[in-house]
């Protein structure tokens, strides 16, 4: 306090003060009271803070307890993918997605060696999902099994998650969807979930409805087709494999343990749960 003596009376010289001692003390008391009040008001928030900030601790717990606490993930093999887009269509049919809002996308890219390869991308279900941290209403959140989920009833449609997602994995319902037929049904499957209302954001769910219902029925997601995402089931070259990353016996874990894989934009620290096997000619 004495170092900040506002009246500048050192060496007995009296100088014009910007604030009087009284005003300064008032200011400090006011600031202190504000901090105290803010801390007090934030008290009920603590469990919330812990829930939001405690991701790492939870992650370790899952690793230890393996399949009792599954962490759903996918491996996509870019060296076998032929770019048939079956996964894109099956997803559209199953989840009732329009052409403009595809949850699964396919693009054609090239390795530095000139090798053309087919890239497909669902939502990567990141462990540190930027969309989850920016959502102002917690409408998108990380489930304990690693799935990044949307609550369509909470979403206010601000689209900050679209802005924050590094992978462009989110689509907004710009207009009301009427009764127009699904562009891919019934050839590629039947819609299993309701259409989303106008004004909310949606994204790939790893076919969460199949996983949850499958587990309840005693099935194993990634093994039993009824409990496995539609895009994985339909792939004609088995370029997509789904399963529990926390279970060392699962096929996804075995592939990751034995094969060189990479994740998209590893540098961003988003920790996706989708792993890619590189195409020939792509150094990782």
């Amino acid at each position: 306090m004495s170092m900040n003596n506002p009246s500048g009376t050192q060496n007995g010289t009296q100088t014009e003060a910007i604030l009087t001692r009284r005003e300064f003390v008032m200011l400090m008391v006011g600031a202190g009271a504000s901090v105290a009040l803010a801390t007090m008001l934030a008290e009920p928030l603590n469990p919330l803070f812990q829930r939001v900030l405690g991701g790492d601790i939870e992650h370790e717990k899952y690793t230890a307890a393996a399949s009792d606490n599954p962490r759903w993930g996918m491996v996509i093999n870019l060296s076998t993918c032929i770019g048939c887009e079956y996964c894109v269509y099956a997803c559209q049919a199953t989840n009732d997605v329009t052409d403009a809002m595809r949850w699964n996308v396919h693009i054609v890219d090239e390795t530095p060696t000139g090798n053309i390869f087919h890239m497909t991308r669902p939502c990567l279900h990141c462990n540190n999902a930027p969309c989850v941290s920016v959502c102002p209403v917690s409408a998108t959140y990380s489930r304990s099994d690693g799935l990044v989920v949307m609550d369509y009833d909470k979403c206010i449609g601000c689209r900050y998650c679209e802005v924050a997602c590094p992978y462009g994995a989110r689509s907004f319902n710009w207009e009301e969807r009427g009764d127009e037929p699904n562009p891919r049904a019934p050839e590629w499957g039947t819609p299993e979930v309701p259409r989303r209302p106008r004004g909310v954001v949606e994204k790939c769910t790893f076919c969460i409805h199949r996983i949850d219902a499958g587990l309840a029925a005693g099935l194993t997601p990634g093994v039993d087709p009824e409990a496995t995402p539609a895009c994985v089931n339909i792939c004609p070259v088995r370029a997509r494999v789904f399963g529990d990353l926390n279970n060392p016996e699962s096929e996804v874990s075995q592939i990751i343990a034995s094969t060189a894989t990479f994740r998209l934009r590893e540098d961003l620290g988003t920790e996706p749960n989708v792993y890619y096997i590189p195409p020939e000619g792509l150094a990782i």
Partner: protein
Amino acid sequence: MIDRALGAARRSPHLTIWYLFLVTLLAFGAVSGARVLIEGLRVTNLTDELPWGLWIVIDLSSIALGAGAFTLSAAVYVFGLKQYASIARAAVFVGLLGYTSAMLALFVDIGRPDRFYHPILYWNPHSVLWEITIAVMFYTTVLVLEFTPIIVESTPLNNYALARRLGHLLHRIMPVVALVGMGISMVHQSSLGATYGILTARPVWYSPSAPVLFILSAIAAGPALTLLVTMISGELMQKRLVPEDVLHGVARFVGFASLAYLYLKLWSWLAVSYYSHVPGHASGIEILNENTPYGFTFWWGEVLMGALLPAIIFLWPRTRRNRYALMLGALMVVAGLVVNRWNVTLSGFVVPLDWSPGVLDVFPINMYEPSLVEWGVAAGIIGYSWLGWTLGVRYLRLYPNAVRLVRRRVVTQPAVAESGEQPATAR
């Protein structure tokens, strides 16, 4: 009734034309807003790749331009610069118009306006946007508290003892209100910059200086807008609304704030684009320069017009004493801020994301031009704030020290000389 309106119109034709113009803007806005609410956001030119546009620019600009309220209130009630009380009320009113404009823009912009209250129910303390929403809500409450005594004083409410006592009570706790308001403002004004600054996947945006640039530019542009509307209104109403030395003090403050902003702005550029080479950032700027007028608007609009020239005008005593130079300078700061908010918002979207591991440029560059409906809503919001100001300055006691000038030519001469003798000081 109609006779009286016609009579008023005949006495002040300019004002009538102005009101008609504002009503036109409002009608355009109402029709456009209704279309958005009925048909949804497909009537905009926004896409999943470029989901924010003109309305977010309006939202960011009006909040920044409302920053005069907290700066000048803090000057009066926290730092004890009592002479600024003569302009602080007007600043509070500008702030209130700015924040309500932003809320209007956001209400139309979100996909589910019927759920606007959700941030209050479903908290996400980790979201910078949640923090902004809550802070804007609290700060608007602060503005209403600061504005209530003005309403009481200016209306027949003043005849009621209870209303007068409420006004008096609010006036007495104003130092606390102003302190809280300053705290909340400092936080959320910078958080708006953080909205973009924290996005690691977008090198053009990702920047630790973004929050600080936002607060510094708001501290400069907020008082600048208050200065501008005060001077224009004074000219038109032939009143000296605020003593000259207060105008000059605000101008000097804006000048120094502009310099501080300029300083950080230049260093943010130097550190990333000149003294070092950040690949993602450099290629992003290259894309912007090739496809948009970003380079031109950044250097000429934001830096030169928005900060450097006004700083010179406001800090050089000769130009500061010239009323027209002062108005021009304030207008330049305000325009520079809007250009900046546009550039910041759009630049990050124009440059596409890059997540595919290959070497091809597979993602197209995103270009944007607001649709007619977007312009319409924007016009409506601008019409709302201008109409609000026009009515407020005419019917509310925004300027406690206002003096009517009988003949402008006679009175302005000594006023200029007077201020020359007593150089305005900020402290």
